[in-house]
């Protein structure tokens, strides 16, 4: 399962071949089979936090899409409040699984239930194999995972695999009223997401963990409550059962 990005030359060839493809998401998804012949696909997401109003529509859409049991969250929006009056701000940080290129959750899974799909780079859990040992829950630096109390298996965002494989955008992307989320193939230089990432200052969460996330942010507020120890006021509201980031 080599997830490394295609070398530049190959990408350019793919770009030329893909010229006919439109830059819209649906098309980007639709060209996947043809493009996969020459390079690997890595789906990713770009979240422009400047466009996010913290309405939780994505969280609700996700809940409805997967019937996520009460108390668990595959997708959530954190509020980051900081500063002293009058110099204050509140920023929103939508969160989900990063479908990492070096997923520690996969490394530790003893049953092979968690794996990264070779065809599109989506990290998935096979609930039939998973024994619910919670090792992956511990290993994910983003707290993206939980044990689904109904299935007893590990659960998390799967980029709406059932929709994406039919060329439909993930539920959170489709529902976002601010159009803050862009979904697509990071390895296709012609995709909207790849272009936006190439032309904007972007960041990923906790890059120091070495997991190489594939969810990018524009203007993410990386402030954390631990900064309180430096004397600045920061409050993070996670809007999930886990009241604090860990």
């Amino acid at each position: 399962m080599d997830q490394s990005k295609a070398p530049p030359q190959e990408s350019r060839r793919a770009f030329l071949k893909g010229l006919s493809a439109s830059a819209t998401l649906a098309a980007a998804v639709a060209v996947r089979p043809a493009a996969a012949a020459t390079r690997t696909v890595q789906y990713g997401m770009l979240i422009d936090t400047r466009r996010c109003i913290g309405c939780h529509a994505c969280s609700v859409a996700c809940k409805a899409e997967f019937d996520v049991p009460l108390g668990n969250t595959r997708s959530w929006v954190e509020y980051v409040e900081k500063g002293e009056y009058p110099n204050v701000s509140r920023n929103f940080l939508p969160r989900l699984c990063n479908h990492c290129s070096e997923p520690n959750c996969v490394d530790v899974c003893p049953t092979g239930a968690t794996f990264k799909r070779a065809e599109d780079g989506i990290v998935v859990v096979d609930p039939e194999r998973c024994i619910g040992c919670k090792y992956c829950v511990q290993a994910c630096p983003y707290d993206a995972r939980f044990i689904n109390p109904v299935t007893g298996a590990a659960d998390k965002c799967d980029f709406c695999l059932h929709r994406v494989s039919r060329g439909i955008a993930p539920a959170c992307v489709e529902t976002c009223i601010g159009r803050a989320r862009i979904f697509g193939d990071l390895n296709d230089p012609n995709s909207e997401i790849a272009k936006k990432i190439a032309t904007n200052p972007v960041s990923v969460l906790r890059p120091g963990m070495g997991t190489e996330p594939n969810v990018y942010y524009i203007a993410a507020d990386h402030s954390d409550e631990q900064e309180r120890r430096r004397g600045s006021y920061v409050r993070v509201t996670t809007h999930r059962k886990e009241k604090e980031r860990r």
Partner: protein
Amino acid sequence: MSMELNWGLPVIAYLFLAGVGAGALTVSASILLRGGGGHFGGSHFDMARYGALIAPLPVMIGSGLLILELGSFHAGHWFKFLNLYTVINLSPMSIGTWLLTAFIGLSLVYAYTFLATDGAPGDRWDALRRSCAWLGVPMGISVAVYTGVLLGAMPSRPFWNSPVLALIFLFSALSTGVAAIMLTRTLFRKFQIRRLEAVSASSSTRRTSDLDVEGQYHQSGYILAASDTLLIGLELTAIFLFLIFAYLTVGDVRYAVSVILFGGSLAGTFWFWVIFLGLVLPALVELYYVTQRLLLHQSFAVPLGIEIVVPTIVLAGGFMLRYVVVVAGQITGPVGI
């Protein structure tokens, strides 16, 4: 910090019990190979015997507890854990599964060779017993080390992500293994002395020691206490290295270790239960009796109460070590987002 613990009491108990079992097997096999096989008389063989009979139990109980902690078990898929046996991969838990299974098998066979009450060096199980012991030393060490690797494999858990943790667990496993043997032989003191008398009466050739039966009993107690003191010393050294390297760094690990340093939420539990009660106090008591024999050449005779209390607090400390480590690892995480 109001975190829900994904790994709770079953995992804490498992880490402790697997350590005790692994330690007991390693110590028993070492004693047997070193001298309990025939040259040191009956009391060494008896120590090896207690270790061998103890070893499988805690590991089997601990592994059973692990199954209780599984999400699949909670959801009513009782036997889904068997999926573990359909895969071998590089996950420490996968390696651990196979290792534990092999350990349980080996330790049961090893224990079986000691089962006969008249078992003695050179009996018909001797060859099997010794082969098991040769395998048992590396096997016990592997199980003890692996419990630390299991926790240490994750950068997302800076408290656990230290190679020293596996060493701490190894020393703790060996010392709690010794403590388990000490406690058992004390509780079965009468039984053991009666057995020693029977052995010395039945064959004088097997005895090379000049000591009387009571003296033999205390001689083996001396060896256990002396090795326990040494192991506790090593464990304290490893804990010191763990703390000092975490303290001298910056970022994730420094932040994580602060929960057991002064002012941290687990500091009291750690310093009282693990360091003082579980390590320093028993080491000092054992040292007191050991040095009397070592330096002043007095006979080693420990009061019954001490012989019960010391291993008990060593075992309690070993449990609290796993408690503090497992909880501390889960209430801390990487700094920043």
